[in-house]
């Protein structure tokens, strides 16, 4: 009887040291789900460094879980700690992606506002530009150029609508640069005419 008690006590001791340590599977799944949601929102494209940090944390947590699972006395505290941070960061990542997209969208809209203002300025300059025999053709050519670049303006909004914020910004910047080039050309033609 006493021997049995000793064995039981030993088993209870071992069980007490091991049974409470359960792998944090739910936390892993929750973190992974948050990270996947951020990836679906474009985390890899818009906040690549933040994405990588969270993905690395998740990998580290998984590695720690594997280590503990092999141990006789399991302790998942460290894994849980890493996962808690990873989950919080993954949740924040979604917000960061949205913020980055918003930032790019605002920048694009601001550029397009500048482009439209520059377009109006260019049109006004062209209307005022002297159209003598020497400059009429040049002014007309500039007007053609301006019309060409103006035709590209409507291409930006669909890119924003599709979520191609980086591409939309590049196009907006290129359009603005080209309109400004036309303004410079018109001004140069006007100056040349004055001389």
């Amino acid at each position: 009887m006493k021997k049995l008690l000793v064995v039981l006590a030993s088993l209870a001791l071992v069980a007490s040291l091991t049974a409470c340590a359960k792998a944090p599977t739910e936390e892993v799944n929750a973190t992974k789900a948050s990270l996947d949601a951020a990836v679906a929102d474009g985390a890899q494209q818009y906040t690549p460094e933040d994405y990588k940090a969270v993905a690395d944390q998740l990998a580290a947590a998984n590695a720690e879980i594997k280590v503990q699972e092999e141990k006789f006395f399991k302790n998942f505290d460290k894994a849980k700690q890493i996962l808690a941070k990873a989950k919080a960061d993954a949740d924040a990542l979604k917000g960061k992606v949205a913020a980055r997209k918003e930032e790019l969208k605002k920048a694009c809209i601001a550029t397009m506002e500048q482009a439209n203002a520059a377009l109006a300025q260019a049109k006004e300059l062209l209307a005022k530009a002297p159209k003598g025999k020497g400059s009429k053709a040049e002014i007309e050519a500039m007007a053609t150029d301006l019309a060409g670049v103006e035709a590209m303006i409507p291409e930006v909004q669909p890119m924003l609508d599709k979520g191609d914020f980086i591409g939309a910004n590049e196009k907006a910047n290129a359009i603005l640069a080209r309109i400004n080039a036309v303004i410079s050309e018109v001004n140069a033609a006007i100056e040349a005419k004055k001389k």
Partner: protein
Amino acid sequence: MKPVSIVANIGPAPRIFGAGPIFVALVLVCALLFLGGCSEPPIPSQVDLAVKQDQDLWKAGIPKLVPREYEEYAATLRAGQDLVVTERSRFIWFQNYDDVAKFFGDVLSQGEQVRTAARIAKAREEGDLIQQVAKVSDRIRILRQLEDNVRDKKMSSRGLVRAETLLTESKGHIKNSDWEKARRAITEASLNVDSAVKATRQRVARFSDGQQIARWRAQVANAVQRSRSNGAYLIVVNKLDRELTLYKGGHQVKTYSAGMGINYLADKLYSGDRATPEGEYKVIRKLPASKFYKALLINYPNEEDQRRFAEAKRRGEISKRTQIGGLIEIHGGGTVGLTNGCVALDDRHMLELYNTVEVGTPVVIVGALDANNSLCATLDSLCNETVQ
């Protein structure tokens, strides 16, 4: 002080359970396991360095630059991390990180190789794209130059502006290392230049048409022959060369540089098309005080012009209300500006010509006299360069 043994301290236990040696052994094992578990050997520094390296590679956009090489590296890194897991899973007395350290040393080397490969790939890709941008830019420049040289601003097309804007856009994509978007923008720009070249070629096709050139040459040769026969003056205007040549008795007397209409490469068809007419005309009036210094009015439209105009109207190519136009002159005012279809000379040359020729002097206006003219040669060269 007398040392106290653990066994001595737990002396009462056997009295309680009557199984002293087993209990003591169990407690000792547990104590050793517990105490031993607190001090795992340190993980080799190479492991952290490799993790940091991976983050740096990611930050530098290397997975996008050399995806295959990076994936291989990442797989090796993962294998290394599995090694660490395996080692850490061992009982601490049996943990040995020598192999891990060596493995991660190799991972670090592989990472550096990936970095180098990415640097090379980036330089190659950027170089290739920049070269393509330069190639398309060059074609645009040549086309713009051509417009300037032939002073035909009608060549300017929206396509050319679009191409220029797309190239600017592509430069932004290159800066972002977004090769795919850059390539797409360059290809679209190139296609736009192709269209502009094609449109220009169609517009000036007559200038490379051997039969047309032969007809123009024959017109001039016949007129020169007549001048030779009757010893009279003859004015020949070569539109593409922007030259007016004065003949007498079949011999060239003088050649003047000439300005033309905004749309001078086209053959004049109707009022307001700003084209300079082509054909055989004569001076019908001398205007001593023209708006542009002095002028020689020619008999545009002649019979051929009227026939073409009527034919175009019949075919519906021009509206019924359109007029054929007139008042085409050779006048002064300088060659720099663009006329609405007249031929313009510098005032001093106009004075010479005005004082030399009389009413009735034949005027032959042709598009070009050389089939291998610079316009066609340039367009041919532009046609042969397309970005792949």
